[in-house]
């Protein structure tokens, strides 16, 4: 890793982690949403560092853009005065914290033990210099069937959402 890359890595990962922490610990959910955008931008930076340029764009547009807006939009339809006086954490927050740290430790051990073949590192990620083209080739040849499945999942989710929200509440 060159020093330049290291510096960029440090910055973007810091952005991602801080954003995530802000999301979790902000009292106001609107602030959380904003922190999420922050974190996602950091993530997009990481993706760019990994030469997944198409995904970087995707991350910025879909996540940091569409999804956050959607969440914020839905939150606005809800009257937050009624949920005022809400404390931030559940009563069993300590357990949640412990379990999360446990998972973190697990994952760290895993990371330290993991061995992957890095000889191909950074190769094959682009066809004729275009990451998007490589991705497209892979997606619409090898992964065509799962891709269609994902489409169905999206459709199902769409229908599900409509059904759920249109229902009359007695």
């Amino acid at each position: 890793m060159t020093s330049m890359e290291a510096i960029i890595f440090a910055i973007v990962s810091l952005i991602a982690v801080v954003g995530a922490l802000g999301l979790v610990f902000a009292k106001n959910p609107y602030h959380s949403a904003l922190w999420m955008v922050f974190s996602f931008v950091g993530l997009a930076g990481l993706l760019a560092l990994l030469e997944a340029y198409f995904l970087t764009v995707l991350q910025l547009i879909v996540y940091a853009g569409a999804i956050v807006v959607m969440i914020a939009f839905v939150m606005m339809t809800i009257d937050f005065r009624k949920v005022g006086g809400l404390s931030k954490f559940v009563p069993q927050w300590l357990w949640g914290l412990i379990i999360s740290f446990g998972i973190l430790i697990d994952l760290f051990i895993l990371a330290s033990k993991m061995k992957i073949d890095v000889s191909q590192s950074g190769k094959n990620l682009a066809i004729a210099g275009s990451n998007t083209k490589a991705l497209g080739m892979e997606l619409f040849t090898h992964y065509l069937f799962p891709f269609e499945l994902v489409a169905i999942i999206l459709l199902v989710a769409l229908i599900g959402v409509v059904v759920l929200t249109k229902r009359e509440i007695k």
Partner: protein
Amino acid sequence: MENYVPFLMVAFILFAIGAIGVLVRRNFFVVLMSLEIMINSAGLVFVILSYFSGTVSGQVFFIFVAAVAASETAVGLAIAVLMYRVRHTVDVTEFSMMKR
């Protein structure tokens, strides 16, 4: 770049932070957002391994993960709206209809 451990560490830290958010927060919307973080960190691991093993498949999976995450968010929000209409709250501790 040959050292993938830092990248993984970041992904894992994000995952753990997301888990904390899911497990400890009361606000349903924050829980949903934390879930997004967790899912994204998982997707990130795909991309990391894709890069270091020199194949573009991982990136494809990131697209799938993103699609699933989007569906999940949509359904989650729908549920949130519905719960709010029923219970007039978005406090997850109030969502205990499964009991009894």
